[in-house]
């Protein structure tokens, strides 16, 4: 970094006190601003470290992922025992003709959709609730939510599994105490649906706080008169939300929805820890865990990469949809 940039060389000294040289201070003031606006090579200099890191550790791996997905790449090729051979779309045809892949894909989409809807519903409902209570309950709920938010996925998973443990967990006991005798020593991870439900509880628990806090901040920014007018007109809480708050909060809601879709679509840790690597006979696999198992458990790296590419494309489609929404709203970047 040079100590003197060419734009800052305009002499500032005569600018002070001397009335006769009026244009000089204007020029002296203008040129640095122009410099800040254009800056020649400076922005690229600032961007260089980020671009180098991203090129090497993000773009190159994406390229590699695509490449490996077209190769016959198993343990034999990795260890050098057999030459690597090009398969074209062979891995993809294998994948698409495998019934398990479609089951996992459908499960992933359904599970992610359920997580997104539940997270948003819980988050928005609690955000509205926060606006209707006084300080003490509000702070209590905020603190509890922050705790859940901050909990690492791994420990959140272990704790939730423990809570629902058939032998030592309190949840089954409470359910029996409430009269639901069917839950006596009920193993949540044994049945496919209840295992997914258990993971969903944990995912919603740790991701609703972001929605709640963001939406709450958004509601607080709505002018009070608007909400008051709604309440004077006798609007119910639901009606106020649907006809007044939700339209105003649309941009915020879109952002948190997209974030949730992206996070919930690629849940890995929770599934892996809570269902022990994808559940009994792989009944709780989602794409991420499926790709991991294919690649690292059965050494089919080509096939695993093909699954990765499928995930990448699905999320890319979501992202492009998001960008279009942003553009339609006329957001400036």
């Amino acid at each position, binding site marked *: *970094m040079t*100590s*003197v*940039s060419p734009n*800052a060389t305009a002499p*500032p000294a005569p600018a002070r006190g001397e009335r006769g040289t009026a244009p000089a201070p204007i020029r*002296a003031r203008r040129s640095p601003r122009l410099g*800040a606006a254009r800056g020649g090579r*400076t*922005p690229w200099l*600032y*961007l260089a*470290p980020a*671009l180098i*890191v991203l090129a*090497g*550790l*993000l773009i190159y791996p*994406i390229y*590699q*992922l695509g490449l*490996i997905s077209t190769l016959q790449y198993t343990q034999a090729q990795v260890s050098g025992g057999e030459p690597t051979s090009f398969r074209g779309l062979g891995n993809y045809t294998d994948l698409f003709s495998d019934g398990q892949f479609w089951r996992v894909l459908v499960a992933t989409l359904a599970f992610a959709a359920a997580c997104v809807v539940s997270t948003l519903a819980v988050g928005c409902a*609690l955000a509205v*609730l*926060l606006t*209707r209570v006084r300080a*003490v309950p509000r702070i*209590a*709920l905020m603190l*509890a*939510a*922050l*705790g*859940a938010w901050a*909990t*690492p996925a*791994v*420990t*959140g998973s*272990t*704790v939730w599994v*423990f809570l629902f443990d058939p032998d*030592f967990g*309190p949840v089954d006991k409470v359910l029996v105490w409430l009269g639901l005798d069917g839950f006596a020593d009920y193993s949540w991870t044994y049945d496919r649906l209840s295992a997914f439900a258990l993971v969903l509880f944990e995912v919603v628990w740790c991701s609703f706080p*972001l929605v709640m*806090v*963001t939406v709450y*901040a*958004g509601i607080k920014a709505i002018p009070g008169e608007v909400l008051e007018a709604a309440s004077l007109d006798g609007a119910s809480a639901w009606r106020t939300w649907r006809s007044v708050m939700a339209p105003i909060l649309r*941009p*915020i809601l879109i952002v948190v929805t997209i974030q949730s879709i*992206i996070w919930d*679509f*690629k849940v890995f840790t929770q599934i892996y*820890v809570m269902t022990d690597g994808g559940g009994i006979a792989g009944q709780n696999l989602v794409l991420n865990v499926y790709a*991991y198992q294919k690649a690292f458990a059965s050494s089919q790296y080509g096939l695993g990469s093909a699954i*990765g590419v499928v995930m990448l494309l699905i*999320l890319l489609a*979501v992202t492009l949809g998001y*960008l279009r929404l942003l553009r339609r709203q006329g957001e400036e970047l």
Partner: protein
Amino acid sequence: MSTTSTLRPRGLLRVRRPWRLAAEAAALVIAAVVAFPLYWMVISAFKPAGEVQSDHPRPWTLHPSLDAFRRVFDQQDFGRYFLNSLLVAGVVVVVSSLIAFLAATAVTRFRFRFRTTLLIMFLVAQMVPVEALTIPMFFLMRDLGDTVPGIGLNTLGSLMLPHIAFSLPFAIWMLRGFVKAVPPALEEAAYIDGASRGRFLWQILFPLVFPGLVATSVFSFISTWNDFLFAKSFIISATENSTLPMALLVFFKDEGNDWGGIMAASTIMTIPVLIFFMLVQRRLVSGLGGAVKD
């Protein structure tokens, strides 16, 4: 309270007060439910073994003990794993914050060709499912290890590098708001006073943006600290380089899980994040607001 109630018609008040009390009761109950898993984790960590693995679990203990924590630190090199996690997360936070600060400055305080393209790229990069890149990353780290010692598979470097890259796009995106908030007049004044670009960047802009950097770093810290997939895939044989998430899983055993140990280890792993989070939460919310609205 009293001033507003005298202004309001009585009928309205009578309908509203029970509703608000109900809402407040609901909020408190929900807060308790949301906090319960963390409470259960901590209380179970302090219970003696017999009470943790009991058919009649109680939400309290009359005999708190540190046995579970002792087991955690005795049975394996847990202290070392803790330091490994801390080191990896620390390096990632510092390096990615600095790189993101420079990049965010470039995209907010300069106008140049491809600026919008770059911004869209950063946005799209956030969406990349990093888990899907585990396979190519694995081979990249293997090859790097052959040429550069210290960052290949089985080293802590193999955990730092991917996280620096993956936390960058979001960090840049979030820092934009903080950098933008510094008034341009300040920059002009600095240049008029003869400050160079570098001086302005590090001695004026950096301190002003620092609170934002801390808020942003929470995300890189958490995603690195929590990382399970890379830790599991890249640290294969060198267990001395394991991090906390892996150490935790050791207590899951086929012959019966050591729940006391799991809960104690989970507590140790959660507390640093919790502290970090509570310290910056105010800034976090305002920063998120900025990132959302921009």
